[in-house]
């Protein structure tokens, strides 16, 4: 898969740099990242804390723009797009799982998912999406009534419910035990396989890397290794 033809390249990133100016100090969150992502690929991003993983994911998802460099998604040049184009891009193509869930506290689980399904072209129902992450019984609970892991699963249901072309997950299993973690990863895996969704998963859990087509490691804002997996292990075989 990693050697797919050029037509299958979904994302092409070149020379991505992102610096933050914190007073006198310049923080280089990304310092020259080149990356191609192909259709239906499942990529796992590893790297120590502060290495720039979330920054890269945000740029791919159209939430942030790099200080320098270029990102192209199919025929959209994300780096020159204006706010309106980026909004459309996110709305039509991207599913997000945030590192901090970011559920709307005043909406129930079902309503949080509905936020996305209401503006998507071909969504699942919120019930279906929540069923996929094992929360069919908690539809009408507010975030404050859910555990951290349950909130994270609502966030995942919200991301996959629109059947996105691109699924970007920032530590989707960070707060989960291994049984639930597997459940969540299976949902991601299923969306990736069945819908051909190009998927990026950030994780600190090296075990998770086994389910990927490719594993990329970041350190200090640079890619330090790209490692294709010969075979993808199904999430249910993972254990930690």
């Amino acid at each position, binding site marked *: 898969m990693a050697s797919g033809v050029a037509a299958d390249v979904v994302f092409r990133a070149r020379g991505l740099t992102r610096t933050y100016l914190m007073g006198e100090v310049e923080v280089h969150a990304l310092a020259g990242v080149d990356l191609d992502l192909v259709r239906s690929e499942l990529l796992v991003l590893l790297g120590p804390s502060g290495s720039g993983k979330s920054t890269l994911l945000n740029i791919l998802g159209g939430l942030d723009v790099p200080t320098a460099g270029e990102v192209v998604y199919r025929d959209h040049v994300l780096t020159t797009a204006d706010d309106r184009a980026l909004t459309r891009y996110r709305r039509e193509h991207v599913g*997000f799982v945030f590192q*901090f869930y970011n559920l709307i506290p005043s909406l129930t689980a079902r*309503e949080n998912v509905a936020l996305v399904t209401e503006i998507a072209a071909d969504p699942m129902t919120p019930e279906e999406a929540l069923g996929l992450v094992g929360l069919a019984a908690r539809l009408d609970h507010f975030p404050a009534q859910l555990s951290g892991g349950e909130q994270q699963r609502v966030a995942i249901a919200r991301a996959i419910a629109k059947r996105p072309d691109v699924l970007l997950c920032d530590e989707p299993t960070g707060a989960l035990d291994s049984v639930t973690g597997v459940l969540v990863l299976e949902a991601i895996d299923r969306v990736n396989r069945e819908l051909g969704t190009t998927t990026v998963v950030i994780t600190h859990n090296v075990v998770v890397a086994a389910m990927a087509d490719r594993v990329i490691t970041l350190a200090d804002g640079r890619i330090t290794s790209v490692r294709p997996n010969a075979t993808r292990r199904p999430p249910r075989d993972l254990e930690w």
Partner: protein
Amino acid sequence: MVGMVRALDRKLLRDLWRLKGQALAIGAVMAVGLAMFVAYFSTFTSLQRTQERYYERHRFADVFASVKRAPLSLATRLAAIPGVAQVDVRVVADVTLDLPGQPAPATGRLVSVPVPRAPMLNDLFLRRGRWMDVGRPDEVLASEAFALANGLGPGSTIPALINGRRRHLQVVGIALSPEYVYTVRPGEVIIDDRRFGVLWMGRQALGAAFDMEGGFNDVVLALSPGASEPAVIGHVDVVLRPYGGFGAIPRRLQMSNWSLTNELAQLRGFGMLVPLIFLVVAAFLLNVVLSRIVSVQREQIAALKALGYSRLELGWHYAKWSLVVGVGASVAGVAGGAWMGRGIIAMYNDFFRFPELLYRMPAGVALAGLAISLVASVGGAMGAVHRAVRLPPAEAMRPEPPAMFTRSLVERVGLAHVLGPAARMVVRNLERQPVRSATSVLGVACSAALLVLGLFFLDAITEMLRVQFDLVQRQDVTVTFVEPRGDAAVHELRRLPGVLDVEATRTVQVRLHVAQRSRQLLITGLVDTPRLQRVVDIGGRVMALPPAGLVLSRSLAEALGVEAGGSVTVEVLEGRRRTVRVPVTAIVDEYLGLSAYMRLEALRTLLREGRLVSGAHLLIDAREEAALYRRLEAMPAVAGVSSTHAMVENFVRQMDETMGVMIGFNVLFASIIAFGVVYNAARLSLSERGRDLASLRVLGYTRVEISTMLLGELAVVVVLAIPVGLVIGYGLAALVIGLFETEMYRFPVAVAPRTYAAAAVVTMGAALVSGLVVRRQLDHLDLVGVLKTRE
């Protein structure tokens, strides 16, 4: 799909519900501003409509003139003046009425009307009873206000002294005239319906009583469309001059109409400014609240943007929040305004006499109210919404960075040791967000300022009364003679029972001209160093009249466009009717009316007359008051007697009735605002600090300790805000007073300490109540819930 309501709208509804207290508070502030706008404007339009219709239907005249005595044949000459459509000549005379149970005698203005009834200008509206019958000379119609104030009706009898003869006038009906919508006793500015009334009497009867069978002393004219009013007035004056014409005046300057016009102008000015202030405050509050909601929800906004919601959708989402408040406020405001408007109209009904003073709420005013409230709410929300949609979505991916704290100023200057940890947190919090703290202070200050604005009218009136009656008009009684008399008459008065001091005056009817402008009024001639009636400016400084020249009140000088050092042409409307140019030697700032003063001697020189007086001011012994009035009434030379005491009492009663209503509304509304502002400030800091405070509770702080931190902040804000608010309040008072100024009267910008104190106390009370409400919410802080989710 989740039901019919979109998820984002559900969020809206739940946010609104969660913040219902704040939404209600802002809505109330806005509703209050709107209610005032709607009330004043609907009252204004109702009054204006009523006035227009009344004038039209009852053919209110265009030009008014009086004359000493002119032959009836002159009517044809007047009618022949180009531009004159109709002429009605009449007999008008002021007489003394001897109503039982009244300490000071009342004045009745007798106005002749045709009997049997025939069409006329200033046609009457007969409220009750019937027209006079032919051959019954004592039958009269009484003006409604006078009848109501004195309990008169058809069948009542009014003892009157007419041309020296005692007559018993029979009231056969109650009537109203467009000429007397607002009736004041001649020479006074304040309505006194008990002591001044209009009585309409048959032409023959009145003519006979004053030897005017073949003549008239008053004329009203209607102009044909397109006629030149100044030209007609000029003509009328020429025709009447040989017969002692007092100078014609246009409708604009006719007393009743002039007062009504002034009142309408005031209502319109007031109807604009005060609600505007309230609405600005409401918009400001809305902005503060929404920006804080937005800043609390920044991560939600970022997440929604990340999920693909556009700026427009999110902008609309937050704008709707304020629109809901705005729409709610405008419904309440328009309804409340209509209710208030009815109240105000009812009050005007006691003041201005119309056949029917109907209250109507014009659709335009209601719609304008709605539009204003929507603009205010959207305008108020704009900045906050703009900030909301501008948030970069990547923010959603990061928790809010811990705020930057520094050691506070108070600590830096070395006061740290006097502050406990709670106080230190309060101070740091306030200093950390100077803009936010300043807006809180400003918001609370505004409410204190509005309280000052609402209350200070009482002080202004009190101060005006003090200057007017303690310093200017110190006489107890003012006596006017039928004709100017030799000053021996003054000595005669001195011998009456209870008279302690007497001061002669000479007042003379004049018209003052400066270029194209003119005003008709009395010049008051005063003795060289008056003890009773003096010329005093609004600062309470007694002014010595210069030996020569005129001293004009500022409002008269402004009406004429003349300054000290200039000169006016005095057209004397009595006696030899000289026209003389007289220098204006000084201008005096006064509260009441248009006045012109001269030294008695200078005035006599101007009039080329001897030692004549037209009236006198008396200081009396209150115990002999009744006896004195009896003697005065019996004197044929005395035309009128007015009591300062009765005037003040009447004025205070009137102000209590009218101003009382307005001040009541103002204070009620200002209190609502005070509560709204302070409650919002408290609630907002609770929602912003809820997490911190919950964390502190988890760490083992007690409820009292965290309440102290939160409410300490509120207390500091309120303490800082009150002085600021009092200063702003004074400024607003000065602004509003400017609008209240008319030719008729102006008010001093006087704010008494008790007003400042009341404003401070109400603000602190509102703070206390808000503090208690928030305190209760703090006690029920859901520790786990707050810590678990990030808002």
